């Protein structure tokens, strides 16, 4: 068998009796690695936010706003966050995915997206803002 023999560890066999799935430790370490990447972008966002609050002219404000936007988008990408739902689009109402403005007594069948939601992997972090479709 072409194998690299380990010097340490259990010698009872090739595998333990139970296969565990992805462990919290591995997930935590992966999350930390992604956060390290995102932290620098968040620091840039804070700096840009300060520039924005100190801006005196329209030009300075729009420049600082663009810098803030750039830094936040970088941080979001490095954490693997994605936006979902196309603004102006229509889709079937799903309370898990949608934050409905002015909900009535009965949930609507179809809604119109007014603001995109945010997800990481399969997890919805911020639902899309929607209104009942006319």
């Amino acid at each position, binding site marked *: 068998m072409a194998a690299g023999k380990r010097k340490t560890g259990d010698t009872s066999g*090739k595998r333990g009796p139970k296969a565990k799935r992805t462990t919290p430790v591995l997930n935590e370490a992966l999350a930390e*690695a992604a956060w390290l990447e995102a932290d620098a972008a968040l620091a840039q966002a804070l700096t840009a936010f300060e520039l924005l609050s100190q801006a005196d002219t329209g030009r300075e404000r729009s420049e600082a706003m663009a810098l803030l936007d750039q830094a936040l988008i970088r941080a979001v990408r490095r954490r693997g966050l994605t936006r979902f739902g196309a603004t102006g689009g229509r889709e079937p109402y799903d309370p898990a995915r949608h934050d409905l403005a002015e909900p009535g007594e009965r949930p609507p069948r179809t809604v119109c997206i007014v603001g995109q939601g945010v997800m990481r992997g399969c997890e919805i972090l911020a639902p899309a803002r929607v209104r009942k479709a006319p």
Partner: protein
Amino acid sequence: MTHAPEAWTLCIDFGTAFSKAAVAPCDAWSRFDPAMVRPLMLGERDIGANVFLLESAVFVDEERILFGPAAIERAEAMASRKRTALRSFKTLLSVSDLDRALNTAAAGSIDPHRLFSMRDLVVFYLAYLLAAIERAVAADPILAPVENFERRYAAPAWRGADSAGLHNVVVRLFGEAEAVAEVVGEQLLSVRGIAIKSARSALAAARTTPRVLDMGLVFEAPAAAAYTSIGLEDSAAHMVVIDVGAGTTDITALARRGKRMEELPEARITLKQAGDFIDRVIANCTLEATPWARSQAHQTALWNALMRNMRDIKDSVFLDGRAMLRFEGRTINIAMRDIEKDTDFRAFLRELTRAYSRSLEVVRAAALFANRREVQAIAVGGGSSAPFVQELIRRKPPNSAKLHFTPRPATPEWAHAREFRGNLAPVFPQLAIAIGGALAPEGMLAVAPAR
């Protein structure tokens, strides 16, 4: 239902700046479960660095040899005395006359004592890497009980060279490294590194009874093909991989024949322009468009700031069409459309498009000859998100009405599996080759282990 793997494969990827390693079940190809993919935590946690990346660096100090982050830190502190760490093992592994390169004495800036050859220092680094792998495996609750791993390493394709001969050199290096690691032990992982005297005697002992480590070799393009197509019911038998690395852009076409994945050698093209070239184009365009930075000192400072922030700049320019950089209280705008006007960049794009079209034509003909209906295209490496690269992989050559050309994402869908809670995908591109190398079935290996 959870499947308990019987045997595991470990793959080491020597990146230019960092080494990475990952483990996957040996039967991953036939019964894929994303949750069983285990990137290894090679570094130490809680030191504010990405724990999956191990810095490829060796520093020869006054009396000790330092490794990884400690080597980088010491080299930075000693930079004013013209001292440097040995880095870029990957570049060394790519040379055609590897034996000769290894037997060269290390430069005075790397080894002021003039005691070590490049080979010695690479062996010490590999011993450090093996010790880090040992520690990472022991800390992983799933892998800790595993006694044996099938081991392999990933390398760029050795163009026009004797792959088997070069592979033999590498497995001998690993054999020496394992012997050194057995003698020196956990000291290798200490931030103080190892004493030069101990290192020399461990090396001498290792060479008295030479051994080779039984390892397989997987080239980077098949590793990319493996993580891209694993678990897909509609995985195509033909694939074209464009790898925009730092120093070269490599285009490789692969075809599955039975259980084997083989390269189509006529489709293989390497261009000498890649990420570093694009960095220089972006920096030069920015300098030209910054009239207020005219003095030599000012331009040097701006150039350095651009290079320090180049990864961020390229991310934004490639994905959003523009980037902004704050420099000396001003905001500098860098737009993709300005870069696209650069003469050198346009020449590179023309050459890249011609090269990709040639490779695509070869893979098209091979797929049609094999009566296949689909070709998949994937872009990997630091420049893979560039719009012109993404445009290339969406390209369909003429006269291929019967064929579908499917671009595949750089991060495969399985990396978003629920088990990872969204945490693998953001770091996947950095770990991709180690993971793909661990997942690849034996038919994708350039050299299989001896068994």
